[in-house]
């Protein structure tokens, strides 16, 4: 599903070169649940943004679902993101002007699906995350846990091959975090591939595999 080989990401200024990732090689199989761990500044989030095609890599290779992502145009990268990847962010990143239904609809809007198809998918995914009754609510009217469920629904509604989660429980209390993790595990059980960045060992332990990143390199797999 995800294959990175000798992948590097360098941030250059006039005076300094900073390696965020250094010759990182990683393979994630279809249906795997992988936790990426590491201290702050280790390159976890850079790894995630490159995996999510939000950033260009400086060197190396990255294959996503057998598609070589090097040199793709913005349009093709956007299309790949839209069709193959679902994002779950630490701070939910819901759009405050839009209600739950409209937030979940966003990725489908960019896919050009008919209104009836969008409605069918949104109803189904809201049912799955247990928020059908909240479809007309706005993010500001919901708890953190509920907002993260909406974000997960938004990530799933496009039926992506890969779910990328960046500290999905980082902004939640223990009880809400447990609920979100159970939801992710359920999603994984149904066949989704999940890569989750976290610094919480307890959460990482619930994944099938743990990958440790330090100074932009994988130190253990």
């Amino acid at each position: 599903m995800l294959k990175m080989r000798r992948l590097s990401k360098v941030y250059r200024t006039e005076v300094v070169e900073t390696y965020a990732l250094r010759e990182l090689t990683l393979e994630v199989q279809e249906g795997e649940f992988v936790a990426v761990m590491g201290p702050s500044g280790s390159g976890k989030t850079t790894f995630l943004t490159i995996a999510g095609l939000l950033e260009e890599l400086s060197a190396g290779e990255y294959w996503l679902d057998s598609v070589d992502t090097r040199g793709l145009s913005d349009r093709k990268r956007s299309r790949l993101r839209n069709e193959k990847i679902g994002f779950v962010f630490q701070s939910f990143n819901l759009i405050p002007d839009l209600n739950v239904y409209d937030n979940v609809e966003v990725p489908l809007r960019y896919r050009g699906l008919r209104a009836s198809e969008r409605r069918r998918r949104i109803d189904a995914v809201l049912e799955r995350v247990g928020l059908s009754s909240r479809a007309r609510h706005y993010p500001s009217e919901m708890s953190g846990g509920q907002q993260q469920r909406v974000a997960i629904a938004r990530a799933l509604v496009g039926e992506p091959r890969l779910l990328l989660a960046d500290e999905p429980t980082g902004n939640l209390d223990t009880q809400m975090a447990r609920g979100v993790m159970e939801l992710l595990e359920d999603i994984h059980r149904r066949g989704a591939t999940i890569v989750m960045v976290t610094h919480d060992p307890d959460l990482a332990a619930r994944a099938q595999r743990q990958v440790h990143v330090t100074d932009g390199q994988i130190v253990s797999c």
Partner: protein
Amino acid sequence: MSYYFNLALRSLRRNIALTALMIGAIGIGIGASMTMLTIFRAASGDPIPGKSAQLFVPQIDNVGPQPNAPAETQDFLPPVLTYLDATGLMQAHAAVRQAAMYPVSISITPSDRSRNPLQVDARATYSDFFPMFTVPFRFGGPWTKTEDDSHAAVVVLTRALNDLLFGGANTVGQNLTIGDRTYRIVGVLDAWHPSPRFYDVGGDTFSGEDQLFLPFTRALDEQMPTVAALFCNGTGAGTGWDGLLHSNCVWIRFWVELPTAHDVASYNTFLHNYAAEQRQSGRFHWPPHVALRNVMQWLSYNHVVPPAVDTLTNVSFALLLVCVLNAVGLMLAKFMASTGMVCVRRALGATRPAIFAQFMVEAGVIGLLGGAVGIGLTKLGLVSCRAVLEKDLSLLTRFSISDVLIALALALAATLLAGLYPAWRATQAQPASQLKTQ
């Protein structure tokens, strides 16, 4: 598109104060520019669309070079003709249609003798005047060429005068007493208000209106004096009516219809030859100096648009530019504040063109709302202009449907232009950096 429109409305509701500032900036710019543009368009518009390029004013130099005249007036040609030249051109009949004309003031004696005589502005002209200027008729039609030649006592009334005198009835065939002579009504015009009154630019170019038309030949018989100024260039108007007719005074307007380029070229040659003949006959002592100008050239030559209106229009558009630049700044602030939302949308699959389109639609909505505010301010501006402009020009302060559409189009174009850079900047947001800073 409807999705982006919906997003734009939500976005504008999010920050009412900033939205109001943007709409206000565009509205003020549109209000100022449309106020002056409305007046400018009315003053400089084509008064006879579709035919203005076929109607021409011939001009003939009847005084020759003036050595003491300022350099900028050396090429001056009088806008009107002498009776001799007008008659010469009429008799040559070198155009498809042609009409000499001059304004008169007549006194109509009502059939009800208890009512006071009515003094009205009238025009002595030829029958070609009506088809040449495509003048619409409500009843009857123009008099005939035979009636031109026979100096017939016939008249054509405007609709307004017919309404005033006869309550709007079909009066064709009825008589009308002008002074102590009886004239037969042959036609009643439908509404016809060319603005500016291109065929007689002068003092009342915008507000003046002829109420009645009668044959030129008849007016001469009746020795009806012109109410326009006589320009005699120091030669004097002679003695009596015959003296005026044979003088070198210019006072008769002349129009010809020349439908094709070939007709125009032929008439130019004819006009040149006519002036050459006048030189040969000893009347002119200078080489032929003539001109032929169509309607729009004629309006420009006569500076029908006052220079002040021209200047104010330019100033108002400069103000619009300032307002647009303000709107650019405000939109930049607003769109940049949406960077987080842009990054989320990009992460969810939005392409840069999709983000650009979303913000341009928002700019368009601001433009339409700004246009609506601008229309209100334009109406207010026009009311103010009525109070300060001369009476003749104040008649131009009418705001038509086409002006409303122009205001909206101008506002839309201005805000879309203003939105280009902020929208482009918004598309350059880096989703990764935004997501890392959370």
